[in-house]
């Protein structure tokens, strides 16, 4: 094809968050051992129960192996070559944002996440995590008036140890998988949210993760608990500088919903993806799971995955409470040499539980994009229902898309429906739009956002437009 812009080029927009902040950091030596685990815990001045949790996880991790069942290829990760703790050197977390190192505030400003009082996003409270630590959380007082706790998990360990002890590791046990065990041993920071009984969180909560160091693994841990009748909507965003080495990101997110509680968890993931030849980029191995513990509880995952060299991620729901509902809405875009193996698990335990899965994979360049999903219906899940829809869009002719839906049902009466489709953006479709005065890139982005609409509709208003723009950016120069 002789078009001046080609579909193949459209995905390769320069990554605009690739800068490094020059700031003094407190880093420990590279490598992992029991001493390192103890050191992290002591740096954070943790109670004994948490040190025990970490040490147990470390022992479990030593006996585990990296999973190899995903459709992902990468050179072996050397866990001794990595640094497990890095923090910008500043004293105690500041009581007031105005005392936070201006360089850090500037960094977040540049990322489009203003933290200073005057410029804050209205109605969105932000916890900003820089490398291994949380540097600021906005709107804390206002949230506290409603009894909502929103702070870094390190602070929660200090201020609310009983809640951490009660819930940490109850959704994702430390021996759940290799990366979850690693995270449980060395996690540095992350966000903690607690919505007490009957409270509807008055604003969107959001955590913004920024990796800055080139040789540091990022292991954050998020825990969200919604008590009876509580509800919250939470958004996670992430970026990293461009390095020609790979950084490991192995996070764990646990959600707990009690009776009638509802948690909506949205992610816009834009870690550095590596260059067009696949050099550099984040290895993203993440365990996210929600536990619908109470009757009629509701957990909804929405993710827009556009970054990372490798994505290994299956946000899941364990539907234990009767009539509980789990949802998974996903857009995963891969370009160049990116690889994504992502999907969800819906584990129906209780009666009349329902789940919905909508997955949209977009593959461009030489990338590979796999959906892997499990719907499991247990013997007690009378009247359980699942609906899954997995659509793939291919851009250009070098990209790959795969779908691996697994269904295991021990309930003859359960209803499980699965639909799948694959489409390709064709040169004729693009030409049709162009011949009506619509520019090439806008034409691609119209088709891509049309394809993703069912998922974008699930994002909080403020972020739906962002997600649209992000995809358009990621696809710029890629169609042909």
């Amino acid at each position: 094809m002789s078009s001046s812009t080609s579909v193949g080029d459209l995905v390769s927009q320069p990554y605009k968050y690739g800068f490094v902040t020059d700031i003094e950091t407190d880093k420990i030596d590279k490598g992992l051992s029991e001493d390192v685990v103890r050191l992290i815990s002591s740096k954070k001045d943790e109670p004994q129960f948490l040190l025990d949790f970490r040490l147990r996880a470390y022992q479990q991790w030593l006996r585990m192996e990296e999973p190899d069942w995903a459709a992902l290829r990468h050179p072996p990760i050397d866990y001794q070559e990595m640094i497990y703790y890095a923090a910008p050197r500043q004293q105690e977390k500041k009581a007031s944002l105005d005392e936070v190192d201006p360089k850090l505030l500037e960094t977040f400003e540049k990322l489009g996440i203003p933290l200073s009082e005057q410029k804050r996003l209205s109605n969105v409270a932000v916890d900003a995590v820089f490398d291994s630590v949380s540097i600021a959380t906005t709107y804390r007082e206002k949230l506290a008036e409603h009894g909502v706790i929103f702070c870094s998990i390190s602070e929660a360990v200090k201020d609310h140890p009983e809640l951490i002890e009660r819930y940490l590791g109850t959704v994702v046990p430390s021996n759940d998988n290799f990366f979850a065990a690693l995270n449980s041993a060395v996690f540095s920071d992350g966000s903690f949210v607690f919505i007490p009984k009957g409270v509807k969180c008055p604003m969107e909560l959001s955590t913004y993760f920024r990796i800055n160091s080139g040789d540091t693994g990022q292991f954050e841990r998020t825990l969200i608990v919604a008590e009876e009748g509580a509800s919250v909507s939470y958004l996670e965003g992430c970026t990293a500088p461009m390095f020609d080495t790979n950084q490991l990101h192995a996070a764990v997110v646990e959600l707990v919903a009690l009776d009638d509680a509802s948690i909506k968890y949205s992610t816009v993931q834009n870690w550095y993806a590596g260059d067009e030849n696949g050099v550099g980029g984040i290895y993203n191995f993440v365990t996210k799971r929600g536990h619908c513990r109470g009757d009629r509880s509701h957990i909804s995952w929405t993710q827009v995955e556009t970054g990372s060299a490798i994505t290994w991620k299956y946000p899941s729901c364990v539907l234990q409470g009767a009539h509980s509902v789990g949802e998974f809405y996903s857009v995963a875009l891969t370009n160049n040499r990116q690889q994504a193996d992502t999907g969800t698990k819906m584990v129906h335990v209780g009666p009349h539980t329902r789940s919905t899965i909508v997955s949209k994979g977009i593959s461009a360049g030489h990338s590979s994009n796999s959906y892997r999903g499990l719907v499991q219906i247990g013997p007690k899940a009378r009247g359980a229902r699942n609906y899954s829809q997995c659509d793939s869009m291919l851009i250009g002719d070098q990209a790959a898309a795969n779908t691996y839906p697994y269904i295991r049902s021990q309930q003859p009466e359960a209803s499980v429906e699965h639909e799948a489709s694959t489409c390709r953006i064709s040169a004729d479709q693009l030409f049709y739009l162009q011949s009506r005065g619509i520019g090439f890139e806008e034409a691609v982005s119209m088709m891509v956002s049309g394809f993703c609409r069912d998922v974008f509709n699930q994002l909080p208003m403020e972020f739906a437009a962002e997600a649209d723009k992000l995809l358009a950016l990621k696809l710029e120069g890629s169609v042909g």
Partner: protein
Amino acid sequence: MIRPDADTLLEIVDLHARVEDKPILKGVNLTIKAGEIHAVMGRNGSGKSTLSKVLAGHPAYTVTGGSVRYRGADLLNLEPEQRARLGLFLGFQYPVEIPGVSNLEFLRVSTNARRMEKGEEELDTFAFEDLVRERLQVVQMDPAFLERSVNEGFSGGEKKRNEILQMALLDPLVAILDETDSGLDIDALRIVAGGVNHLASPENATLLITHYQRLLDVITPDYVHVMAGGRILRTGGKELALELEDRGYDWVDQELAVLEVA
């Protein structure tokens, strides 16, 4: 309507084009002035659709010789979207379906792209909705089609009406309609032809690509061109179309054979 003093809108000189390695257009000459209606006829495979796509800028076709001037300026170095914004319109023989893209939104974005080029203000969703409802009447189309994805699940006739609706919104200076009549029943043909007649003015021009006299019974062409083997073999008035209907294309094939030997 032929007026000697009318502006020249499109001037095609010795146009050659190929697809992959196959030469298809082999020296097309054609001049179109404002106010005129031209018909291009010819057997399947003679290069009619190729000519229309080359004019609209389809990337699969490579121009290997000749020139095209549109309102005095070089057309061939413009991107397809620029050509469209400047008022060149192609009604496709086979309009593609575009799942997920709302027809209404598509029509609005393209209409605004053309309006901006003409120096008119952009229409917001409400203003556009008023405009589109008015233009729907030109093709007697049900507003329900606006809510669907572009051409998705439309019947052949509905797709063609959607093309004419786009033409009515984009207000082109040169409209090329590639077999807009084929696959239409008599009523649909009348509606589409009525739309084309309604939109024709002394300022614009229409190039109809067709096989059938029945379209030319309702839209009277000023010129009829017969295409064969990638060029225009003969040009005449509306009688030429009647002659083709009477005598068929065999004589065209013979003339072409003579030409290709020479």
